[in-house]
């Protein structure tokens, strides 16, 4: 742990170019994961199974969007441009989110004949949420102090999200046969992509060496152990080792789903990014 020196501010981080680069690479993953999944959540608005859930889901998407904003602002403080520009003016290939979070909610568009899959929404949110919990815990030990601080803050909100998804998972797993089947299909679908969550991307070596976060294998094992325990308690079969998509989101390879998402979420801002909105 020779490199484990605490960095207190963005200014200090910028003094070591290699450190700042590794930090930015990690922050893009954190920000883009939350941003894109919150965007997918926002597409569900008005379409959830009942009104109470609509309110709850929307509230969680806002929290997650809020987390993304905090990460983008950290990137801004590192001199990478305005947070709004970072979030909305990059092309899909510049995003570092995992493929799992960019997948569409179902068929159709959010405002044009959407047929969204609630089982997929639950499983994706929960599986991602469980990984995010492990990641936030690990970030609390980060050498970048501002990151350790925000992750503690996020953790308080995030715990409620996990409780919410746990209730859903448990209910659906133990209700009707139809629900159970839909849940299992959703797990299978999520599982095709979920393995990428713990990928720290092309600069993983530097990210870990600078003590920004624990190594992939540690994160992955903790997350899998926790997920296995949750599945077991809901009486669900363990789907085995999670797979990864053919694209590697952490390296900037994405599906058409992300291109569509980025085009939509930046549509108004791109009319005139220099204007005030």
């Amino acid at each position, binding site marked *: 742990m020779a490199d484990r020196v605490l960095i207190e501010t963005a200014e200090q981080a910028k003094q070591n170019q290699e450190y700042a680069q590794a930090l930015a690479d990690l922050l893009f993953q954190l920000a883009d994961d939350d941003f894109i999944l919150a965007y997918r959540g926002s597409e569900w608005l008005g379409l959830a199974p009942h009104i109470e859930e609509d309110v709850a889901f*929307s509230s969680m998407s806002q929290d997650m969007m809020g987390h993304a904003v905090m990460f983008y602002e950290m990137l801004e403080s590192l001199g990478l441009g305005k947070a709004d520009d970072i979030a909305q003016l990059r092309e899909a290939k510049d995003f570092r989110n995992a493929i799992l979070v960019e997948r569409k909610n179902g068929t159709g568009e959010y405002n044009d004949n*959407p047929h969204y899959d*609630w089982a997929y929404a639950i499983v994706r949110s929960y599986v991602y949420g469980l990984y995010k919990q492990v990641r936030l815990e690990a970030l609390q030990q980060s050498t970048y102090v501002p990151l350790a601080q925000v992750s503690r803050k996020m953790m308080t909100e995030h715990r409620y999200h996990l409780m919410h998804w746990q209730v859903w998972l448990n209910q659906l797993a133990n209700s009707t046969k139809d629900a159970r089947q839909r849940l299992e299909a959703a797990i299978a679908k999520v599982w095709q992509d979920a393995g990428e969550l713990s990928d720290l991307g092309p600069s993983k070596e530097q990210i870990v060496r600078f003590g920004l976060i624990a190594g992939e294998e540690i994160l992955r094992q903790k997350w899998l152990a926790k997920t296995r325990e949750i599945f077991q308690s809901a009486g669900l079969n363990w789907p085995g080792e999670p797979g990864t998509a053919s694209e590697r989101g952490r390296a900037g390879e994405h599906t058409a789903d992300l291109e569509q998402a980025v085009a939509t979420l930046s549509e108004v801002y791109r009319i005139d990014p220099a204007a005030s909105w």
Partner: protein
Amino acid sequence: MQTRMEHSELTENEKMEAFLARIDRGEKIEADDWMPADYRNQLIKLISMHGISEIMGALPEKEWVPKAPTLRRKLAIMAKVQDEMGHGQLLLRVAEDLMAPLGKTREDLMQDLFTGRLKFHNVFHMEAPTWADAGVIGWLVDGAAIITQTMSLDTSYAPYARALHRICAEEKFHAQHGESIVLELAEGTEAQRQMLQESITRWWPSLLMFFGPPENGTITSNQSANMRYKIRSQTNEELRQAFLTKYVPRIFHLGFTLPDETIHFDEASGQWIYQQPDWEAFKLIVKGQGPRSAHRLSLRETSYEDTKWVRDAIMSFGRQAG
């Protein structure tokens, strides 16, 4: 104070008299209190329409939630539309309590919405094609809603009054949220100002319609019942006049125009004189023939059908757990 036992021995007429006396004394009616059937029915009609309008009202803004232009705006509009859904929830709960003795549930309300029996506000049948519409909805539509809801804060039905107190407090934030979007556009580039002007022009007739047709001296039986029962205290036209007084000067002050060259405040009568919107069109719109009525209803109906299995699953889980 009468006890429940004594009350049950009264004739219907005596109960009615006692009820009206309570209304006249300015007392508030609670869900479990005795109430005449037409009072209950008026409330169900009013509150379920209000509640469902909040829910359908989330849909035009929903179109802009994923597209909001900055991170701050994204967070703000998500919160705003979530509040509207929350208002819908709060109001449907109030309506559900009123419907319970009639054996009706929320499911019935949703079905009434899909079959067109339950109407929602005219404004939510309209198109919202630009980001400026998200601003105008928050500023002027919510502004109009605040005016009608503030009138109802003193409604004789206590559960509705309590819901409205909470709703009005939040609506004020919404109007500020809308105003903030509008001001940003108003102070922005030529293209932004034009986008806003087009939106104001587009929404104007709908905003006039929002308060319902003018009475012209003839109050409908519905309105007079509502006023007798102190469910509401002002007429459509009084509310519209209050809206015009509040917003027309602001719109002009920002340098925007209205699609009505005749509009002015007549000092002598103390009234705004304005061009009437097409009230025949209004009837068709609330019947579900507005430009976006079918689209928004189908959005809600499709999602409701697509998630039926979820509600079935929750019921089944509840039965097992219970």
